Each structure stands twice: as C-alpha cells, then as structure tokens.
C-alpha cells in the first residue's frame, strides 16, 4: 500500500507530464510541414532533432525533476509525517517504494514520445523505426532516472515546499553549464543530455546511469534513516 500512496501523491504530476509530452510530440508529428525546416529534413532526422534530441527532451527533463519532489520532509510540512512514520515500516522502505514508483513514472514519461511517434506516423504516411524509438526511450529513461534521483535526494535533504524544486532547478542549470566546459566535454558519458539524444546505444552510459541512480537513492534512504522528525 505504500506504492499506492506514492502513486496517489505523484499521479497528477505524472499524468500532466504524460499528457504534455504526448501532446507536443503529436503536434510535431502532425504539423511537421508547418515547423521550420520540418519538411526539408528526412522524417527520421526530423523526429530525432525535434523530439529525441530537441526541445521535447528538455520538457521531459523538467517533468522528471518535478516527479522527484516529495518525501517525508515535505510530509512534515503538510503535517502527515507523524501518521506515516508511525506506520510499522522502516523509513528506508518508504524511500525505496517512492523511488520505485517514481522511476516507473520516469520510464513511463520516456515512452510517451515513442508511443506518439509510432501511433501518429502511419497516419501522416511516414515511418520511424521502432528499434530506434525504443532505444531513445531507454536512453531517456536512464538519463531521466539520474536527474530524478538528483531532485529526489534534494527533497530528502531540504525541507520546505519550494526549496527542493528551486535547488533542483539551480543544480540542473549548473550541471548543464558544467558538462559544456571543455575539460568535461572530453568525457561524453558524464553528459546525461547527450546520452539521452545519442544516435548510438551508449551501453556504458546506460549502465553508469543505473548505478548512479541506485547510489543516489540508497544515499537518500540512508539520510532519511538519520533524520529527526
């Protein structure tokens, strides 16, 4: 039932994200000819440039950050932490369940472009390779998981309804500037954004993303065990 609670707490954010991503991907596919350079590019190139490695990816990143927010410190602000903590479950279990549901939602959001592209392309008499679409979804899910874990951890560390969101956005901005520094650019696997839009399957990057996500969530669970409520 902790999973039910985690789902109920995040469902509005998830459904809004899914609807927005689906809507914008649909608009790109259906109104391709009306978009600048849309008709000039080959359809698969257009899909990659506009969706998988373009503005829709940034929108996805924003929704992923918002999905990471929540947790026991935020519950304390709402006055429900006492009830939750009195339940006979370890705090680490609360954290793990919330992380699992959140990561499932991150994967769900990552699959929205694929769903929209695969469903709408035939209607526009176009085709996009399913294998490529699934590969991009996997890359988005892996990259999104790392960013989700980041805002998830900040939610565990910072009380107050807006401090976790504000600091997550600031951290995201700092990270995007950092990965563009020439020294860091030599290590493309450190750049989650380029991993998400990579034309080849970045196996090392995906494995690294999974490991980093697990490490951050485990640290968040450990931190939660240490906190006083």
């Amino acid at each position, binding site marked *: *039932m902790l999973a*039910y*609670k985690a789902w*109920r*707490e995040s469902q509005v954010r998830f459904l809004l994200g899914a609807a927005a991503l689906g809507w914008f991907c649909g608009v790109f596919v259906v109104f391709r000819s009306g978009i600048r350079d849309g008709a000039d590019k080959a359809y698969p190139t257009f899909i990659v440039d506009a969706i998988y490695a373009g503005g829709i990816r940034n929108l996805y990143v924003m929704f992923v950050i918002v999905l990471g927010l929540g947790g026991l410190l935020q519950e304390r602000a*709402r*006055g*429900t*932490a*006492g*009830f939750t*903590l*009195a*339940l*006979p*479950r*370890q705090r680490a279990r609360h954290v793990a369940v919330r992380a699992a549901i959140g990561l499932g939602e991150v994967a769900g959001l990552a699959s929205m472009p694929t769903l929209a592209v695969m469903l709408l392309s035939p209607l526009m008499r176009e085709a996009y390779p399913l294998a490529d679409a699934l590969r991009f979804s996997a890359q988005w899910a892996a990259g999104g998981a790392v960013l989700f874990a980041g805002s998830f951890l900040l939610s565990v560390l910072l009380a107050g309804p807006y401090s976790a969101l504000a600091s997550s956005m600031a951290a995201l901005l700092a990270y995007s500037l950092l990965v563009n520094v020439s020294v860091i650019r030599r290590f493309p696997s450190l750049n989650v954004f380029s991993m998400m839009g990579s034309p080849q399957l970045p196996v090392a990057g995906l494995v690294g993303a999974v490991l980093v996500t697990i490490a951050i969530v485990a640290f968040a669970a450990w931190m939660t*065990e*240490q906190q*006083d*409520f």
Partner: protein
Amino acid sequence: MSDAWAIDTQQLTKRYGTLDAVRSLDLKVARHGITGFLGRNGAGKSTTIKMLLGMTRPTSGSGTIVNRRIDHPRESLEARRRVAYVAEDKQTYAYMTVEQMIRFTRSFYTDWQPDLERRLLDELGLPARRKVKALSKGMRTKLALLLALARRPELLILDEPSEGLDPVSIEELLQTLVATAAEGTTIFFSSHQIAEVERIADRVCIIDHGQLVADLSLDDMRQEYRRITLGFTSEPPVADFHMPGVEHVRTSGRQMDVFVTRNAAAVVERARRAAVVSLDVTPLTLRDVFLETVQHSLRETA
C-alpha cells in the same frame, strides 16, 4: 525491562544544539489505565513522544515502549505494530477519501478488526466517501482515532488530542478515550489542558524544561495532597516543617504555605504545637499541583 510498564525510559535526553529539549527523563507509564502527560508549551512533551515512537533519535539514554527498545530499529518497528499514535495535527492524506484511508491503514496491520472498524465508523459518524481534505478538524480527529483504535492497540499515544477542537468534539473525544481504556488499551496522552487531564486520567506525569518534575496518582492527589496555610505572630519556623510528606514550604511575611503530598495530619499537629494563630487546610486540585510544581521547578532552575 518489565512487563508492568507500557513506557519505561532511563535518562532519556534529546539535545538540539545547546538546547536540552528533554533532560535525563525517567518516565514510567504503567499498563492499563490513562496517564496524562502534562507540561507547558515547549516543555518537551512532543519530543518525548517522538523519541518513544522512533521519529526522533535520543541524544543519550534509553527506553522501552511495550517492552521494545526505542533506539533499536527492528524493535521500534515491532513496537509500532502494537502502538497507535494520534499526532497533534491529526492530519492524514488529504487526497484520499475516508474509506481509502481506512483501507490503506488496514493493510499494515494483521490484527485489524473489521467489526470494530464498522462500529467506530458508525458511532463516529464519519462520511466514508468524503475526501480527508473536506473534513472539519473534529472529523479529522475522529478519523485519526478510528485508524488508531480499529486494531485495539496495546498502547494508544495521543499528542495534544483536544488541540483546536470545539467543546462538543472534546467531550466526544474524552468519552472515546475513557471507553477505550475500559476495554484494556493503555492510554498515554500529552496535554496542557489541565481540566481534561484531571477528568479522565488515573495518573499524571508533569514535565517541565525537559525534566520529569512530578509523577502522581490522581486518587492519591485527591486524598492526600493538601495546602496548609499557617499564620504566625512572628517569623514562621520554616525549619520545623521539613518533614516527611512536605514537598515545599513558601513564606510570605508571617504566613506560611506548606504543600504536602502525605502526612497532612502530622503537619497540622506540628503547626498546633508551634502556636499558630490561624490554620487552613485545603485539598489541592491538579491545577494547584501543576502550578506549584512548575513554579517550584522554575525557582530551582533560577
């Protein structure tokens, strides 16, 4: 560890920076009956309760709750299966309906009693389909009580249960607590509402500045606790009244107030021998005891 105690702490301390929220607290709450935990705002009541439930880690000291160590994660978890808690704000999840909240909570307890749940739902008049966020504070308190009581916990801990409630809701709450205690659940509740504590509690523990300053039975208080006011023609002989049962003595000019927790007759006898010109013995109420205890503790701290 003793089976006699529902709560038993030794030298329990919680420090926040330089502030001692709870200081060397030795608290013992017997099984069965109702124990009030009385103290001013900021006296350390909520911090103590949070330490008992594993929400806050003690800085030092130890304790048990239903015979499970509070600082041992696995035992604290086991304790939470047997103990119910109603927090001060009585908030549950605003986005759920009453029946969803019940279904959610029920899933954590194997000893949940559906018959009792239905009875309480009926008695408390809770609207099953209404969302928690649409409930009044009184209704939220009733829901919190239902969630706590529907598994007949060994121990029910309530933090300021009547806070923010109207007089009718307070009355219903107190009656529910008395009925619950009669069915065998130990009740430990914090409050700074002396009248409520006096009405339903069997024992009272008073905490001030994080320290336990009194632990008394209300029956004993009613039978034994007295204020003896003595008038003298000259300076009162304070030293003569340092005797068993005398808690403290206060003088004001030629008048002396002696607070006794037992032995009032012996004090009166000694006063007569000391040639008092006036003598007045009055039973102490919980309010008197609380104010005396807290003020005495303040003077000692100063």
